[in-house]
């Protein structure tokens, strides 16, 4: 339908040449991959932040090491390192435990890898956000008889989200753009689809620009959603008038 519309408009150079479904599939792959890795990294980030703020050095030191090392090394290097080593490590583990051989597919390996890398960035974001919640809030919650879990769920978490949101937004944008790299480790994402379509139609420039525009669309949409969330979570807080 899109193609025939272009034909009637006399813009058949911009036709997708039947690569529309491939591009859509690639886009879906990119979105799926980034959302799942976001989930993994937020969970890792919360655990990491809790470990970094813990009073026991057994938890604090590994968490410190995790954030420093991961954030000091380029994500692409880590991606190649973890992605290619993950299967080897898993095979060694299954051998040692005498389990059956487990083959991990490229997609889950990609999710684990990206989640593990960006978990370090989220750890720092959440640590800063938790520290920004006034101490008195936790003390008051304790005085009301809330236990540890309740204190986190009802008092610290809703307030912490307000401080964490700008950081989460930044990390999400970086994570989304980092998923463009997974085509290097062989996943069929948007970049790979655009390259394949471009190479077979000899219109590489057009399809790459198209892929860039799709990324722009996703980043703009998420920017919009984040601004909405920021407004929602800052309900009840006042900013100084300038």
């Amino acid at each position, binding site marked *: 339908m899109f193609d025939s519309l272009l034909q009637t408009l006399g813009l058949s150079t911009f036709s997708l040449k039947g690569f529309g479904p491939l591009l859509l599939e690639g886009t879906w792959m990119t979105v799926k991959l980034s959302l799942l890795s976001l989930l993994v990294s937020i969970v890792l980030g919360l655990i990491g932040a809790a470990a970094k703020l813990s009073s026991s050095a057994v938890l604090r030191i590994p968490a410190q090491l995790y954030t420093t090392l991961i954030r000091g*090394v380029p994500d*692409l290097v880590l991606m190649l*390192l973890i992605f*290619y080593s993950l299967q080897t490590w898993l095979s060694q583990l299954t051998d040692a435990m005498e389990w059956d051989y487990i083959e991990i597919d490229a997609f889950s390996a990609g999710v684990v890898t990206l989640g593990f890398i960006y978990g370090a960035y989220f750890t720092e974001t959440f640590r800063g956000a938790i520290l920004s919640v006034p101490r008195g809030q936790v003390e008051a919650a304790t005085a009301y008889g809330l236990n540890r879990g309740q204190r986190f769920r009802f008092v610290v978490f809703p307030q912490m989200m307000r401080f964490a949101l700008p950081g989460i937004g930044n990390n999400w944008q970086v994570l989304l*753009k980092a998923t*463009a790299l997974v085509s290097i480790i062989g996943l069929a994402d948007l*970049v790979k689809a655009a390259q394949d379509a471009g190479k077979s139609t000899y219109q590489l420039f057009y399809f790459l620009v198209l892929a860039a525009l799709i990324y722009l669309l996703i980043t*703009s949409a998420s920017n919009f959603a984040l601004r909405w969330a920021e407004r929602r979570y800052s309900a009840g807080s006042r900013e100084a008038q300038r």
Partner: protein
Amino acid sequence: MIELLQEYWRPFLYSDGVHITGLAMTMWLLSASIAIGFVVSIPLSIARVSRTFWVRWPVQFYTYLFRGTPLYIQLLICYTGIYSLEAVRAQPLLDSFFRDAMNCTILAFALNTCAYTTEIFAGAIRSMNHGEVEAAKAYGLTGWKLYAYVIMPSALRRSLPFYSNEVILMLHSTTVAFTATVPDILKVARDANSATFMTFQSFGIAAIIYLCITFILVGLFRLAERRWLAFLGPAH
């Protein structure tokens, strides 16, 4: 591990005998793109905060485009996309420029980092204390003198912490250069990996080199901050 190091320490650090490779190449990529990005972003950041719509808007659009898309795609467009156009190959000058992988890589990197740096500097100019500008105006400074003597020196200093972040992110981004056949540290690591099948060791060495550069850069920026941000008080 020892054999790997014995065979590959030279390409990892500076040369494979013919070309500059590894650490030297990464540092060259980083410094070239950062330098171009810095020089271009200063006028752009001033335009970004301009009150005239037609001056501000094109810069805003440029930063929006380049910050909203992945660097990898930008590099692919520069390296393979543009050269696939007939019109570019027909022009001798453009043809010779875009045929060279190094030119395309530095062009893509410089455009990318320039967009981020422009926003950082523009933010610093915007958050400038109004009293500072008013005092400068009261002393009779106007036009470019106001910018050259008061606004830019102050804005550049205050953006140092954010700028250091950007430089480190750029160092990390230079790793995509190997996809355009530029022999940086990661390219050497990949070659070592495919020759020896020691995946963890090959990429591990690359990771350690990058980690060292990151730590050195962080240290240098901390020194710079101590020197140029001393006026911000005892917090530093």
